Structure formats: structure tokens, C-alpha cells
């Protein structure tokens, strides 16, 4: 246990914050730990946390995808347009919307790997362009009246108290953990993020790896966008606008290095749970949404800053506590 804590300092810190949040919330509102509230807590942000799982791969790989929220809006808009004009059966429309999302990822992936433009720039253009494409399709209207099974999928429970989206998230999270930390593919993601040159000379096809990750990120964003459409029951061009910052915040709070090469799925999961619990708890206490955002922002800075300050204090005054050379690795 002690050695696990020592090698997983970041995760331990997050777990501590999470437990404190849960205990605090439960004391404040006893209904907090009820199954209904727990499911609800995930349910209100389900699309963000689904996309964050894919984002963790992209950032650990040393890239970033700012376009996810726009791709969410775009794929939902494609689905809504096909449905409104009754061009194809609804099931086919969902598949087309996902293919469009994959194409969006492919274009960006090719720009990054073949043209060598930094992903931050490419996906910044994607953020503007795909949001624009969603507006082109839906203009300023909203499209609803989806088939009943689709609305039910997004709004009702599927197994016991669990809705479809939550089951999908749990499966994706488990799969993400397994692939990232237990397979050769996952090791390649880390190695490439840590040092692309070393990865290249170790025989990893870096470009192919990055291309696949950016396509995967866009496809997952497409799935999340469609799920969002089902949950809301209607789609607007502004669906999921500005979600990218929340998603990236969760991943970075999870201890994933923005430079790539380090971070864990456990950390990202703990960060998601912490953010959701803090927001939910403050919601129960009637704290305004904008203050919740500020608290999450402060948490993001504080959780990165406090360990560094403690570390520096220890280096400067080695006799206080015990100096541990490995303590700085987040």
C-alpha cells in the first residue's frame, strides 16, 4: 500500500480530494449517496466524460484535439438533417453521422501526420470549421421528433438504474484502461508521447499511430454527440459548444502531462469523479454554476501547484520532513 501510494502520488491525492468531497456532500445532504443521485451525477455530464477517455489517449500521445466539441455538434447535426429530410432510415443515418465524424478526424489526422502541422493548430481550425458546418446544416433552428426508441435510449434506464450512456462510458473506461496500460498499443502511445524520435527508431510507425488516435478521438466525439442528441431529444447547431475546455481540464487534472508520455486512466477517472462530485455537491447546496466553474479551475491550478510548492519547501529545508528525490513526478 505504501509503495503504491509512493508510485501513484497524483492518484492518491485525487482519491483523497474525492473522498473528502463525498464525505462533505453526504454530511450536507444525506440523499447524496442514493443510487438515484449517483446515476444522475454521471448522467448530466456523460458526453464530456466519454470524450475525455479518448482525449486521454491523444494527450498522452503528445498531441491535442481541440475540435471534439465541434465534431460532437457536427455529427449530431448530420444525424438531425438526415432525419429531418427523411433521406435514409434512422439507423443508417446514425452510421452516416459516425462516418462523417471519422472523416473529420481523418482530415485532421492527415494534416497533422502528412503535412506536419501541429495538432493544436489543425484542431483549432477544426474547432471553427466543424462548428460552422453544424451551423450550415441546422442554421438557427432546432430538429427534434426522433424515433421513440432513440429518445428512450438517451433518456431512460436500460439495465437496472443504469442508462445506456452510463453503461457505454463504463465499458469505454474499462477498455481504455486495458488498452492503454495492458497492451502493446498502449505502450506505443506512451513511448511516442515521451519521445517521438525514440519511438520512430524503435520501429513504431508514429504517423500511423497518431492518425488512428485522431480518428478514434473524432469517432468517440461523434458517438457522444449522437448520445447528447438522444438525451436532449433535439439538436441545435450550438450543441456541446465550448465543451472542449471542460474535457481537457478533466484529463489534465487527472495527472496527464500536457507534454505527453505520462498519466494514467485511473487518474483521469478519479479526476472525472472529483469534478462531477464537486459540481453535484455544490449544485445540491444551491451554489451558482459559474462559481462551480471557478472552483474547478482553482482545483486544477491548486492540485498542480501544491505538490510543487511542498517539494520546493523540502528541497530548501531538507531537515523538515524527509527529502524524497522521486516526489516531484506527478
Amino acid at each position, binding site marked *: 500500500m505504501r509503495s503504491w501510494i509512493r508510485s501513484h502520488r497524483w492518484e492518491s491525492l485525487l482519491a483523497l480530494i474525492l473522498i473528502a468531497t463525498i464525505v462533505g456532500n453526504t454530511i450536507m445532504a444525506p440523499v447524496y449517496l442514493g443510487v438515484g443521485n449517483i446515476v444522475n451525477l454521471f448522467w448530466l455530464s456523460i458526453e464530456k466524460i466519454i470524450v475525455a477517455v479518448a482525449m486521454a489517449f491523444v494527450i498522452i500521445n503528445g498531441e491535442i484535439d481541440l475540435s471534439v466539441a465541434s465534431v460532437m455538434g457536427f455529427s449530431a447535426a448530420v444525424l438531425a438533417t438526415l432525419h429531418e429530410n427523411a433521406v435514409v432510415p434512422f439507423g443508417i443515418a446514425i452510421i452516416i453521422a459516425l462516418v462523417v465524424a471519422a472523416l473529420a478526424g481523418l482530415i485532421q489526422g492527415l494534416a497533422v501526420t502528412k503535412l506536419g502541422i501541429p495538432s493544436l493548430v489543425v484542431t483549432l481550425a477544426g474547432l471553427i*470549421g466543424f462548428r460552422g458546418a453544424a451551423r450550415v446544416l441546422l442554421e438557427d433552428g432546432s430538429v427534434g421528433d426522433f424515433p421513440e426508441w432513440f429518445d428512450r435510449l438517451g433518456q431512460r434506464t436500460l439495465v437496472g438504474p443504469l442508462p445506456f450512456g452510463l453503461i457505454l462510458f463504463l465499458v469505454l473506461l474499462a477498455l481504455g484502461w486495458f488498452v492503454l496500460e495492458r497492451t502493446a498499443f498502449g505502450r506505443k502511445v506512451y513511448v511516442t508521447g515521451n519521445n517521438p524520435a525514440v519511438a520512430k527508431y524503435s520501429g513504431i510507425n508514429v504517423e500511423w499511430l497518431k492518425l488512428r488516435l485522431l480518428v478514434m478521438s473524432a469517432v468517440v466525439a461523434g458517438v457522444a454527440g449522437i448520445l447528447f442528441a438522444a438525451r436532449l431529444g433535439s439538436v441545435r447547431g450550438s450543441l456541446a459548444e465550448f465543451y472542449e475546455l471542460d474535457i481537457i481540464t478533466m484529463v489534465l487534472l487527472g495527472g496527464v502531462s500536457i507534454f505527453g508520455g505520462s498519466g494514467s486512466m485511473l487518474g483521469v477517472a478519479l479526476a472525472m469523479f472529483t469534478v462531477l462530485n464537486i459540481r453535484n455537491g455544490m449544485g445540491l447546496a444551491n451554489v451558482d454554476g459559474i462559481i462551480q466553474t471557478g472552483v*474547478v479551475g482553482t482545483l486544477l491550478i491548486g492540485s*498542480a501547484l501544491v505538490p510543487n510548492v511542498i517539494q520546493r519547501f523540502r528541497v530548501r529545508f531538507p531537515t523538515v520532513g524527509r527529502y524524497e528525490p522521486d516526489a516531484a513526478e506527478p
Partner: protein
Amino acid sequence: MSTSSRRRLRPDRIKELSLFGLIALSVVVFGSVVEGYLSGRFFNRVTTSVVVVVILAVAQSLVIVSRNIDLSVGSIVGVSAYLTADFLQSNAGANPVLAVVIAMAVGAALGAFNGAIVAYGGVPAIIVTLGTLALFRTLVSLYSGGANVTADVLPDWVIELNASTLVSAGGFDLRTTFLVAIGVVVVFQWVLARMRWGRRLYAIGSNPDAAAQAGIPARRLILLSYIGTGSLAGLAGFMFMVRVGTISATAGSGLELESVAAAVVGGVSILGGAGTILGAFLGALLIDTLRLSLVRVPQVSEFWRDAVLGILVLLAVIADSLLSRRLSGRVVDVSAVESATSSTATAVKGAADA
């Protein structure tokens, strides 16, 4: 040192020329498609609307060259615009210069907060400023309590300043606010290209280890650059107030990405160490020219504008990268550059941790 710095500058000049060419090209293309496009009115519209983004692009470049970033500039614009407007609301007789000073001081204080955590707290800039993007916005929301400051309670000079013209010739007006933006560009172009602390920011951005070995006080300079970025974002907040008039708690949201886009299109490398203020200015000008030109093309409905703009920005970046590679006469092995920079980044991280 002097020969190597002269060699460094050459690709920058090429980049600026190619951007200038792209702006000229888009004006010619739109001019041949749209009737009455090449008019003083269009020039005036662009030079009025581009002011805020130009100042922010300069602000953003100041931190990007040292391999940092400031995603909180949009929120700083919001805070400074709101506080300044609120001040003018209750002190209608106040001197305009005092209002500018307040806006910039507010920005400088917020920038110092960012800079202190980045430079002395050892936290990556993107994490700090992603946090303060939310935090500063929360502050202005709390302060405002949801109330707007409307244009009609502001002193008259605020509204007049937006349309005030220094020189006018044949319908082409040189607005005061645009000249201020040009002044900011000139001053910081000179600072980054000629002054010691400007050159040192490039050194920190291109190789932090070497910069540290050379005895450059990186922490102090990075703090200073964030204070500069904050003050400029505060000035942009003042300009925002002048241009928009009515200020809500959400004023300026989204400007952080616009400023990054302008700097990056302008050839300021997101990996630090390369790019010029003049380039960032041209990048902002190119994006805004494209955006406003699309408004004039009747075939492009308002819903198409963002989509087309995204494509044009991407095309501009691609064209620019191909053009400057061709002109500089060598093909850059991108993966080699990436690996070099990323291994330095890892090394820096290690150094910061140790």
C-alpha cells in the same frame, strides 16, 4: 551571436512576406467577385474590428515565443472591460487616460497572477491559464451579479472614440483605435527583435536548458512576459468596451482561441522560439479580412461563414507552411523537429521537477 541571429530572422521575413501575399491575394480575389468591395468603407470596417484581436495576438505572441501560452486572455478582457465600464459608469467625469490605466493595471495584476504560478510554481502554462480562464470569468460574474453596463450610461467620449479619425483620405479613414493597435505592434516588434529581454524570451522558448546554462533569468523574464500579456489584454479590454459599448459578464469569451489562431497563422511557433509580432499582426489581419470579406459575398449565407473561415484558416496555414519551406530552400524533417523539441520539453520538465 549576431550572425546566427541574422540567419534566424530570414525565415521570419519570408513568412511575413507570404502572409502579406495571402492578404493581397484574398483582397484581389474578393475584389473581383464582389462589386464595390475595394472601397474605403471596407477598409474602415476591417481596421475598426481588428483592433482587439491585433492587441491580443501581440499579447499572446509575447508568451508563446517562450514556449508558454495564455488561454485566460479572453477572461482578462472581460474583467478589465467590465471593471473599467463600471468605473466610468460611476465616475462619468473621469479622465480617459485614467480609464486606460485602470484597464491595463487590472490586466497586469491578473497577468502577474498567471506568471507567478507559471514561473515560480512550476505548473505548465496551459494548466494555469486553463484554470484562470474559468477563475477570472467567475470573478467578473460574481462582481457583476448578472447586471450589464450599457452604452448609454458610459461617457460620450467612449462612443466617440470608436469612430474618431486622425487622418482621412478618399473615404479611407485611419481610426485612432487602429493607430493605437499599430503602435502596440511597432513597440513590441522592436522589443522582441531588438531588446535584450525580448531576444532572451526567444532563447528560453527555443532551448530552455541552454538558456539556463547561459545564465538567463528565465523565471523573472517569464513573469515579466505574463505581466506584459496581461496589460495588453487589459488594453484590449478597454478597446473592447470602446467598440462594443454594452458590457456583460461574458464579454470577451472565445477571444483566447482567436488570439492563438491569429498568432499561429501569423507564424508564431506554438513550440516556442520562433515567429514575430509583425507576423502575428498579419495573421490577425488575414483572418479578419477573410471573415469580413465573406460577409460581403451574397452567395455565402451567414451560416456558412464559420465553416468557410475554418477551411480558409487551415488552407492559409498549409499554404504558408509549404510556401515558407519552398522559399527557405530546404525541406524540414518535421518528425525530427518534433522529436527534438519534445525531448527538450521532457528534459525541461525533468529540470523543473529536480
